[in-house]
């Protein structure tokens, strides 16, 4: 045990001989070791607890919480410690696979900067208090709370946590629940709901012969990346579909495209209508309302080529590809929806699917999930604005945070940090000391997802509907830390004791909930006990969602005239990547040290510039830039490459934390801070791509650390060789 300051009791715990074993076995086995006040019973290793064999790892099924795709995981547990996470092959979401964020989940769980005990603000400072005092303080301060002056601010929640959260709000008579997520596809969901009657219809990438993606980074940061990556593998198998990616900044998906097209940011809608016009002129039959037809007719090729900066012959070529390859799939991602006219632009792009007859082929209904109360309450950028407004207007007396970091995400113009002072009682249920947590008055450390119970229903459901089940993979590192479910149950018991007294903890609540499922879910399980064990073994509950046809309803689309580019400024493109995500994974060392897939930068934020733009500014890779909007300026290092439009500057998202532990704090800059107050006119969503910035070199060189020292030439060696798809089809089957 050299190097560790372990006492006997901790050692037993770590070896899995304490109550952890019971939790792991997932049912009420008798404990072989009791650790009570001042009394220990020592049991020989010769009679080990079930499933605990020293030296042998056992895999338990659970659910990944690193983003809201809710992939199924298997966690390897040895001697009571969770060691490694892998994908759950039974999960139709990720089919046994797990991305780098999911792999890094253990580093959040074992993070050295986790909060371990409750903190309360005294004389302006957060000081440690006991759990008893913390719960008492919570009860005292919320006993006379008026529901309409209270709000929850959370990440995406679903499953039974959502049920309890709704119950808690109801018990208070509260209605305000903000879910601020900056990279959520919230505008696309609004368009899809209006256009097809479903916010998240199922996308069959594997059935498409051609995917034209307008900035939808489905392999990296869009909706359910690991699921789409598994579909992508089928899409790319012989006869091999074609991928065209059109975006201002090359994403991971763009890096895998057959044709990557740089588009002037903000002109995606015009290109989509231009393509629609070409298709209709070319005789594609589509049932469109007259008004829309007239709008489309206004987008002639030369006008569109001029606006987008894409040569006319290339636009014609893309239209020809769309006509030739059916079924296709046209997607709209963050750069399209993040504009002042994001709704219309997204609708224009998705309209192509209707014209091309993809609806019912590659875009199909997900049906009606039979348990609406379990469905995900998904994130929205407008919730960030709405919450900031509520704080500014002094509409709140108390706010509870969980799984959200609005102080980090809020643009400077919202002045959220200052307005938070207007809320007298701010409580963080938090795992880490992030910007929001440290602005609170009471901090309650919570369990990691590796220590917690839960059920999760992803907003995007694959072919087979699922409720992903989460179970603890090990005992809590910090005793007393509740999960979200337990915290909610405690809060509810304080308000409605008789209603919730039947359940001593969230585990028992969840067991009851699973037992209460209709009989058809339980298959041939002989008892509730057997079904519960089966559920934990599988890590999911399959839900059959009857299919129904999509009802297409086409909206009117009015796109503004696009002004000529302003040579003095560039379009700010905050670029999320698979890894740092929206900044929530900046405290994981594996993620910091994993090179960005495209630029290969490690441990930093960076700004991508096209060589022509860099030449105009007189900067080279590694030079320091000042990027200034009307709202402020950030300093960031340049990365020069040909994967960004000359009218854009792409600044990586996720760094620039002012707090959030040793790995995140003080690394790089945060482009969200300098966003202008631009919102999508129709949905009110904050427009991430709506800010023009002045960019100037600071005349200083700083170093960007790049994997392979930035070398990107093969010097004639056959390292990666490329062959034409025709050859691939000939040799490996059509």
């Amino acid at each position, binding site marked *: 045990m050299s190097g*560790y300051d372990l006492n006997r009791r901790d050692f037993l715990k*770590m070896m899995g001989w304490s109550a952890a074993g019971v939790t792991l076995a997932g049912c009420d086995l008798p404990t072989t070791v009791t650790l009570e006040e001042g009394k220990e019973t020592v049991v020989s290793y010769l009679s080990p607890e079930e499933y605990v064999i020293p*030296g042998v790892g056992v895999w338990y099924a659970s659910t990944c919480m690193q983003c809201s795709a809710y992939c199924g995981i298997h966690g390897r547990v*040895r001697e009571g*410690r*969770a*060691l*490694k996470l*892998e*994908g759950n092959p039974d999960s139709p979401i990720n089919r046994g696979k797990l991305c*780098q964020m999911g*792999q*890094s989940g*253990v580093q959040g769980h*074992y*993070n*050295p900067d986790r909060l371990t005990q409750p903190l309360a603000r005294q004389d302006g400072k957060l000081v440690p208090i006991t759990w008893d005092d913390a719960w008492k303080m919570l009860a005292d301060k919320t006993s006379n709370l008026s529901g309409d002056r209270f709000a929850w601010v959370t990440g995406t929640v679903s499953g039974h946590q959502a049920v309890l959260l709704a119950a808690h709000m109801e018990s208070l008579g509260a209605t305000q629940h903000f879910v601020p997520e900056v990279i959520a596809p919230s505008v696309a969901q609004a368009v899809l709901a209006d256009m097809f009657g479903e916010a998240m219809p199922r996308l069959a990438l594997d059935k498409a012969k051609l995917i034209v993606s307008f900035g939808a980074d489905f392999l*990296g940061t869009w909706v359910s990346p690991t699921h789409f*990556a598994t579909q*992508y*593998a089928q899409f*790319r198998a012989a006869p*091999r579909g074609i991928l065209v990616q059109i975006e201002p900044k090359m994403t991971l998906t763009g*890096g*895998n*495209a*057959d*044709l*990557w097209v*740089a588009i002037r940011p903000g002109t995606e809608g015009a290109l989509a209508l231009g393509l629609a016009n070409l298709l209709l002129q070319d005789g594609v039959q589509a049932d469109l309302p007259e008004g829309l037809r007239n709008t489309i007719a206004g987008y002639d090729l030369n006008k569109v080529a001029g606006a987008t900066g894409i040569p006319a012959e*290339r636009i014609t070529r893309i239209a020809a*590809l769309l006509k030739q390859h059916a079924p296709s799939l046209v997607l709209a991602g963050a750069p399209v929806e993040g504009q002042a006219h994001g709704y219309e632009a997204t609708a224009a792009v998705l309209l192509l699917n209707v014209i091309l007859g993809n609806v019912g082929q590659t875009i199909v209904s997900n049906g009606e999930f039979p348990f609406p109360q379990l469905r995900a309450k998904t994130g929205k950028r407008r919730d960030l604005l709405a919450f900031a407004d509520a704080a500014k207007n002094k509409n709140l007396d108390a706010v509870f945070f969980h799984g959200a970091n609005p102080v980090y995400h809020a643009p400077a113009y919202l002045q959220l940090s200052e307005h938070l002072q207007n809320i007298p009682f701010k409580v963080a249920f938090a795992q880490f000391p992030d910007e929001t947590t440290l602005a609170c008055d009471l901090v309650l450390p919570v369990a990691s997802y590796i220590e917690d119970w839960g059920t999760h229903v992803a907003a995007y459901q694959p072919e087979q509907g699922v409720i992903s089940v989460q179970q603890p993979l090990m005992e809590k590192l910090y005793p007393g830390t509740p999960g979200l479910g337990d915290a909610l149950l405690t809060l509810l018991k304080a308000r409605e004791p008789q209603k919730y007294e039947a359940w001593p903890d969230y585990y028992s609540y969840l067991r009851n909930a699973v037992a209460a499922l209709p009989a058809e879910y339980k298959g041939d399980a002989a008892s509730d006990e057997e079904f519960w064990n089966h559920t934990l073994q599988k890590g999911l509950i399959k839900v059959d969602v009857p299919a129904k046809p999509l009802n297409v309803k086409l909206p009117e689309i009015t796109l503004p005239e696009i002004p000529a580019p302003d040579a003095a400024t560039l379009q700010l493109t905050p670029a999320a990547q698979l890894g740092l995500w929206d900044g929530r994974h900046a405290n994981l*060392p*594996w993620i910091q*040290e*994993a*090179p960005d*897939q495209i630029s290969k930068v490690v*441990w930093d934020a960076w700004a991508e510039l096209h060589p*022509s733009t860099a030449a105009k500014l007189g900067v080279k890779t590694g030079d320091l830039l000042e990027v200034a909007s009307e709202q402020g300026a950030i300093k960031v290092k340049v990365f020069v*490459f*040909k*994967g960004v439009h000359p009218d854009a500057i792409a600044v990586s998202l996720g760094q620039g934390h002012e707090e959030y532990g040793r790995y995140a704090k003080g690394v790089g800059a945060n482009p969200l801070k300098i966003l202008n107050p631009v919102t999508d006119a129709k949905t009110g969503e904050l427009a991430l791509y709506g800010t023009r910035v002045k960019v100037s070199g600071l005349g200083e060189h700083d170093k960007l*650390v790049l*994997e*392979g020292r930035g070398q*990107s*030439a*093969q010097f004639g060696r*056959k*390292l*990666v060789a*490329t*062959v*034409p*798809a*025709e050859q*691939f089809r000939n*040799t*490996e089957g059509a």
Partner: protein
Amino acid sequence: MSSSLQNLLNNWSQYRKGIEEGGHHKYEHRWAMVVDLNLCIGCNACSTACYAENNLPVVGKERYDRGHMMHWMRIERYWDESPDKEFHEQGASFLPMMCQQCGAAPCEPVCPVVATYHTPDGLNAQVYNRCIGSRYCSNNCPYKVRYFNFWSYYDAAWPEPLNMQLNPDLAVRDKGVMEKCTFCVQRIRVAKDQAKMENRKVKDGEFTTACAQACPTNAIVFGDQLDAESKVAQLWNKHQVQRVVTKQDKQNPDLRGYRILEELNVDPSVMYLERVRENVA
């Protein structure tokens, strides 16, 4: 030229050429890999899975810059367009690069203390306890996939309780020791032991490496090339890629299989399948 040097060079040549005459080893298994660059999306899942499985330390920005990074599995990224193009129109070329477990590995004969040697499974093994840190092996590796511990990383990489994540199935390497991809030898060990206990052969697919397990597109296939039924052996055959040779003589030269730098006569155990692009521009 002195006789001893002559002797060394003669033996060297015999060693380097011996592989073409049947080699010096009788293999029990021949662990090999296939990496399909048509499927690889460059997402880093493999690399991070390797960190988790193999106790790889995170070295931090400054040390990374000095070349002290320890990623056994890295994704190289190349741009292949001609320089006169305005944009990278065909995307990136991603290349997962890890130890190629050469059949005639240049790292092996140069080790002064036999810390790196050839196993009966065809792996280039590294004996940490023997390694004295001469770094000759790394100098000699054409793939640059050997990583040297310039520091002890216990406290720097795993401040408590991050150390609790460490995989107890393998060691944490200390300062002065060379390390590299092992094809997850600890997983191979478990599978072989299990098979032996059950008095059977190791079955294809009953285990795999951490990288292949994580890969969302199944671009990485791992297995025993001596097992004719294995997916790996079948893919090598299908793509008409031979071991030992320095230049493939394929009946159908359009097949995508190739080995990186095989002309150096190192006999790599990893076959790559060429990246595919549709010419739509």
